């Protein structure tokens, strides 16, 4: 085999990595001498993605960097093998995660006031251990409650590049509500 080229080195690194690989990490691959620029790396990554266009694995970019992943198309086949099925999350867990994702940074009390029910400690711990949420600070109110936010791993695991890629985020902005309430007020008079 001739001296490996840049594309192959990236390919080797991406298939060895357990986590998405950032451009910064990719540059480290080439040692200290003269690492390729970000532009050169992105060019090589584009070329690599093309090479895999017809393959069962695809090069994708998520928040934490780049990774190869097996397309969803194959999930039904892989399901035949999967002995430990990933757990499903309860609605309470998903709603708590949604609150943190869309309203971050947010306290537990704020989550509770929107959901109208107490948030179980186990839900928070499950999400923390899954690596999807983390405490980013404490709110300067009595009791100094923890402020929760989602992590890069959350974005990675949901295949997102940024929080802006979250679905239907517009619906969560308070503007429409205001409009509706205005309407309501005027109709009452």
């Amino acid at each position: 085999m001739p001296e490996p080229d840049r594309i192959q080195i990236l390919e080797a690194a991406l298939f060895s990595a357990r986590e998405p690989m950032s451009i910064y990490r990719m540059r480290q691959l080439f040692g200290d001498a003269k690492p390729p620029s970000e532009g050169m790396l992105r060019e090589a990554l584009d070329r690599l993605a093309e090479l895999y266009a017809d393959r069962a694995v695809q090069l994708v970019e998520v928040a934490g960097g780049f990774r190869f992943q097996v397309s969803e198309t194959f999930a039904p086949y892989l399901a035949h093998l999967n002995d430990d099925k990933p757990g499903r999350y309860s609605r309470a867990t998903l709603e708590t995660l949604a609150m943190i994702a869309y309203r971050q940074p947010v306290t537990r009390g704020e989550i509770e006031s929107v959901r109208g029910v107490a948030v179980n400690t186990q839900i928070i711990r499950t999400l923390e251990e899954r690596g999807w949420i983390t405490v980013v600070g404490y709110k300067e109110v009595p009791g100094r409650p923890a402020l929760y936010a989602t992590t890069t791993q959350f974005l990675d695991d949901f295949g997102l590049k940024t929080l802006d890629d979250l679905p239907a985020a517009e619906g969560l902005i308070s503007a429409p509500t205001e409009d509706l309430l205005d309407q309501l007020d005027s109709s009452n008079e």
Partner: protein
Amino acid sequence: MSAQQVQGELPLALVDGEPLTKLPEDLYIPPDALEVILDAFEGPLDLLLYLIRRQNLDIVRIDVAEITRQYMGYIALLEAMRFELAAEYLVMAAMLAEIKSRALLPKAPSSEDDEELDPRAELIRRLLEYEKIKQSAESLDALPRIDRDFQVAQAASPDIDCHVSPPAVDLSELVVAFGELLARAQLSSAHQIEWEPLSTRQRMSEVLMKLKERAELTLADVFSVDEGRAGVVVSFLAILELVREGLCALVQAAPGSVIYIRGVADA
């Protein structure tokens, strides 16, 4: 009863601009569905949303009196069936009752400085907000997720030390972790379980590991002379414990013949 009839004369609600004067027949949840209600709903807001959506109404147009009646009926049924209701459901009932009573009072001349929140508007705001979270939770769940919908593609790495060196763990960290775990478990469990001494549990693991390599073992394979009397006791306890937990079986062909230890899977 009479309240319901009075209610019946008035439009119950507007559906797409059309006044709705009759209650749909299927407005009530059948009683047999009640058994799942506490699992099915994520709280009073969720239950209210369900009641509203069953009527195909806009949240902003809800008829508080009617919704209150249905909600109360629901709560009464649950209580009659001795379900333990979360306090939140009762708080919501009180709030609905308050809104309903206010609606019956003549409207006070609107004063500019009236800073008090209109409880009906407040309820609607909360319902709208909760519904958005509910929907976003659903769309979040619909996103392709790692390990559920797609897998990270990985290949075996060359056999060099190319992995990030694994974190070091101090023994004390492990002990502290276990101690915290126990402290937490004590809080949540009422009874204390007696555990075997560690040496027994280690011996249990060792026997199981040996059974992985060989289908059956003799007692001599497990007992070791140089461990002395204490070692024999530990091994014996370990085997008894494994048999008790159904993890291995003792087999003897005839009285006085060799006793074999077998893995249950192969038995």
